[in-house]
């Protein structure tokens, strides 16, 4: 394995600086366009904007879309199953946050 020089670079925070278009999100997650459209219709992803060309996704969609892709492709979960799994994961995240707020008592 060869090594190359060290590069110094600065990234942009997706959540604050870059709203993602439908194409951006598809490219970033390697997800087919029709999958992403179906996830929006099902409410798995909630972009701003009315029609697909106007859709703008936040950084949180990146993680959700990648998870949705894995559930769809590798586990062959259907659309409503994907929506249900993501809802439940959200709920677990909320419960964990609640637990964190309360602390170790």
């Amino acid at each position, binding site marked *: 394995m060869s090594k190359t020089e060290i590069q110094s*670079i600065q990234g942009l925070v*997706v959540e604050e600086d870059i709203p993602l278009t439908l194409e951006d999100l598809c490219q970033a997650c390697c997800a087919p366009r029709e999958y992403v459209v179906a996830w929006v219709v099902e409410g798995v992803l909630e972009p701003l904007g009315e029609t697909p060309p106007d859709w703008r996704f936040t950084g949180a969609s990146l*993680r959700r879309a990648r998870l949705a892709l894995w559930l769809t492709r590798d586990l062959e979960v259907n659309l409503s199953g994907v929506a249900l799994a993501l809802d439940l994961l959200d709920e677990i995240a909320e419960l964990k946050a609640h637990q964190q707020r309360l602390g170790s008592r």
Partner: protein
Amino acid sequence: MKFKDYYEVFGVPRDATQDDIKRAYRKLARKYHPDVSKDADADVRFKELGEAYAVLKDPEKRAAYDQMGSQWKAGQDFQPPPDWDAGFEFSGRDFGSGADSVHSDFFEALFGRHARGGQRPGMHARGQDHHAKVLIDLEDAYRGAQRSITLRMPVPDEHGRIALRERTLDVRIPKGIRAGQHLRLAGQGEPGIGEGGPGDLFLEIEFKPHAQFRVIGPDVYLDLPLAPWEAALGSSVTVPTPEGSVQLTIPAGSAAGRQLRLKGKGIPGKTPGDLYAVLTIALPPAVSENEKAAYRAMAEAFDFNARAPMKG
């Protein structure tokens, strides 16, 4: 390079059916998906599963892999025999699980060249975007930080063969970054084919667990233990924050569980988070005669039944 036994990864025999492999993959993938698993090494296990599945789920790749024979053991030193894959066609760039297409050097040596579609002349395609996680300290989010991250990327050499190359990127983590947010490093993903540009690299930020602070979005929580008299009579105590200590006034009559907010002392940003001190009461042990006397005096002085809320 070390030989990888993809059957061993799934714990299935070499003559397992495609259905057996699929079942084994799904069962293990559910267990080790980093978004679902509680295992510390879930990330590593999940990548290993993805790589093994990318080979075994595809009948062509599986057949080529099987052809190398069963005498190989996992971890043995290995070089692919010349023309080991003659007669096999692998298709497509769409490959493996999700977007994580960086596999081991073993995988790349066997399948890497084909995974990218053979790079025919005149073919152009943008490189895939890559994803990686970066662990930072909570303090880094307050100050900003510089982090070296090492990535292994498959890169074609002058003969079109794919080799893994290690790249070190010195990434500036901006002040105010939060867990779960992504940094996009434009052009740092997979190289493009032909005139296609390179993909981007997305870094997902995660905080290392902290002994003292808990983080929820932009807000930071810490447990603040108080002596019973500090909580009852009020006091001024020194509280650590990721930016250094501050003096906090405890109002008289504070109960355990009360949250005191330090506005704007959470993670900085356009709308900075808050820091919450969650009060806990630490009970002093009564060991010496003096201490016991003090507890007895309290028992005398208070008309207090700790179990009053319990009926019966």
